[in-house]
């Protein structure tokens, strides 16, 4: 029997870990039902659907949605909807591109030997280890410099001028996502026996068919994990997005940050709760997909 199993120290440590991991999330969700405009103190739940709701002891407001007052409030906020749209557009586009590039890089690093291979491998870690703020500044400088030159050289004026926006945010996201995808896929490829590909070719499949019928299905779980990691990184990226966004490309993290500087209403909590729910469902879905693939079917 494991001697540490029932030790009170282990139980205490486990409780603490779970507490610090999940308490903030629980509080965040709880406060999204707060009957207060200022989101610093819990004033109790909004209880009634049709009654006028009392806020902060004195403020009274109509609340047709009852406990979900802040969620209704949120759905009427066009800025939030636009930011959510931007965030998802950027995350989806960047994830697809980065997953393709990252998977190809991982395959190349696994199966070919070339002179600069050690350098290529090492260069994967650089975007991961250097501070995000440094990368953000670097990317911003690159974009503004080259856009300046290009605008001048091509004589672009007005709306056709190259400027920061969804495009630049997407490109920067791809740039920092690729190494993560590559490393995750590489880990998956580590145990990949090349005799599977040889078997496919032996049975008459050319390189292309071999990849799509054998290699890709076998590494798909790795590719999906890489894509999911990249997707979540993109969803909540603040620093790089902060440097590279422009008018009309505000993402949710940038928007929330903007809100915090004015007034923190439980709307922010409602937004975060929805966000957590979406990510949670996405992860569960992926887990389910992967376990279904791994489980033998009768």
């Amino acid at each position, binding site marked *: 029997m494991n001697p540490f199993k029932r030790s009170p120290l282990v139980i205490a440590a486990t409780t603490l870990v779970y507490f610090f991991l999940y308490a903030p999330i629980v509080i965040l969700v709880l406060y999204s039902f707060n009957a207060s405009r200022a989101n610093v103190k819990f004033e109790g739940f909004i209880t009634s659907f049709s009654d006028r709701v009392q806020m902060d002891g004195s403020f009274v407001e109509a609340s047709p949605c009852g406990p979900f007052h802040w969620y209704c409030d949120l759905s009427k906020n066009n800025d939030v909807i636009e930011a959510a749209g931007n965030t998802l557009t950027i995350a989806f586009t960047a994830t697809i591109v980065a997953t393709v590039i990252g998977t190809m890089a991982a395959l190349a690093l696994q199966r070919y030997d070339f002179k600069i291979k050690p350098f290529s491998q090492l260069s994967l870690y650089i975007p991961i280890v250097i501070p995000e703020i440094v990368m953000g500044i670097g990317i911003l400088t690159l974009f503004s410099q080259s856009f300046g030159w290009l605008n001048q050289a091509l004589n672009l004026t007005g709306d056709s001028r190259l400027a920061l926006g969804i495009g630049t945010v997407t490109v920067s996201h791809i740039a920092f996502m690729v190494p993560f995808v590559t490393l995750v896929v590489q880990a998956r490829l580590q145990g990949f*026996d090349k*005799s*599977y590909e*040889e*078997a*496919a*070719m*032996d*049975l*008459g*499949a*050319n390189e292309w*068919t071999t990849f799509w*019928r*054998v290699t890709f*299905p*076998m590494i798909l779980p790795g590719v999906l994990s890489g894509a999911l990691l990249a997707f979540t990184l993109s969803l909540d990226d603040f620093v790089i997005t902060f440097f590279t966004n422009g008018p009309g490309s505000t993402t949710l993290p940038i928007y929330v940050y903007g809100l915090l500087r004015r007034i923190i209403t439980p709307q922010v909590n409602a937004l975060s709760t929805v966000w957590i729910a979406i990510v949670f469902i996405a992860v569960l879905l992926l887990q389910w997909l992967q376990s279904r*693939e791994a489980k*033998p*079917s*009768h």
Partner: protein
Amino acid sequence: MTSEFAVEMRDVVKRFVTPEGHEIAAVDHVTMQIKNGEFFSMLGSSGCGKTTSLRMIAGFEWPSEGEVFIEGRPMGHTPPFQRKVNTVFQSYALFQHMTVYQNVAFGLEMEGADKSEIDKRVKRALEMVQLTGMERRRPRQLSGGQQQRVAVARALVKTPDVLLLDEPLGALDLKLRKEMQLELKALQQQLGITFIYVTHDQEEALTMSDRIAVMSKGRVQQLATPVEIYERPVNKFVADFIGESNFFEGRIKSISKDEAVAHIPALNTELKGLPMSRDFVKGEDVAISVRPEKIRIVENKTKGDGLFMAKVLTSVYIGSDTHVYLDLEGIRLKIMEQNRISRLDPSSFYSKDQVVTLMFMPENTLILKKD
């Protein structure tokens, strides 16, 4: 069939560059001709070049020099998917994301066969390896032996000219392995397809093969039938690698036709009437070998022609046989005796330091080149 030979390797060399930058020849000027319908084995320890040779026939590697012919056609850089050979891999390499049926059907799909044709042939192939009813299972739901059968069915369903098998039974336990050996051999005889079988297990090679190529250090040491390889090994390596041999150092004293007289200094004796497998010259230093089961312990207590006195070092009872290790004038010998009579009395077995008389017949004694 356009050619007498199913597969021919003509002076094939395969060089690899090691990670340290050295160039090594994994296959070093190998020439062999594998006949149609033959069960052919490549036998050797790891690194002898047998797997590399097989991979060159399959098309996974290309020769650095020389040429591989399949059905008389030079293969050059023909990719594996354009060769009429199929492989059973050591690891089986069954596609884990496909069912047994899909695995076996894969090769036929690649040929563009229609659904009913595929269905018919897959069913027949699975029947052949006794896996009917397992169509919808996944590879990981099968036992090692069953996976092995799927791998065989998947390769054979394509009706190749040649089936290549890379240590296909290596992962199975001994009993199952023996069963599969017989099954594979029966399958080969039934189908009449050429099998090229790579193994490091000499017993396996001797059991199954029509001919064996014994390989070492990238070269073919001997290519012959199992009987010839065991009874007339061409050199000391083969005599030592296939089965067991006792060796003496000796020198050719005289030669006549195909018999020779050799002097063995350590025993201070001459052996006459020795058969020879290749040309030697008078005065040449040679190795003289005798198989352990071909030396007999006799009742006669005197020394004489072909009789030697030796001291028992140890005796090991292994059920069907007894292995006796002896000291003969400072040379360590091994003898195998069959336990033909059931007995329990300890005194009937050889004991340490017991002196016995050995006899070996000239026709069981071979003269071999010194390596």
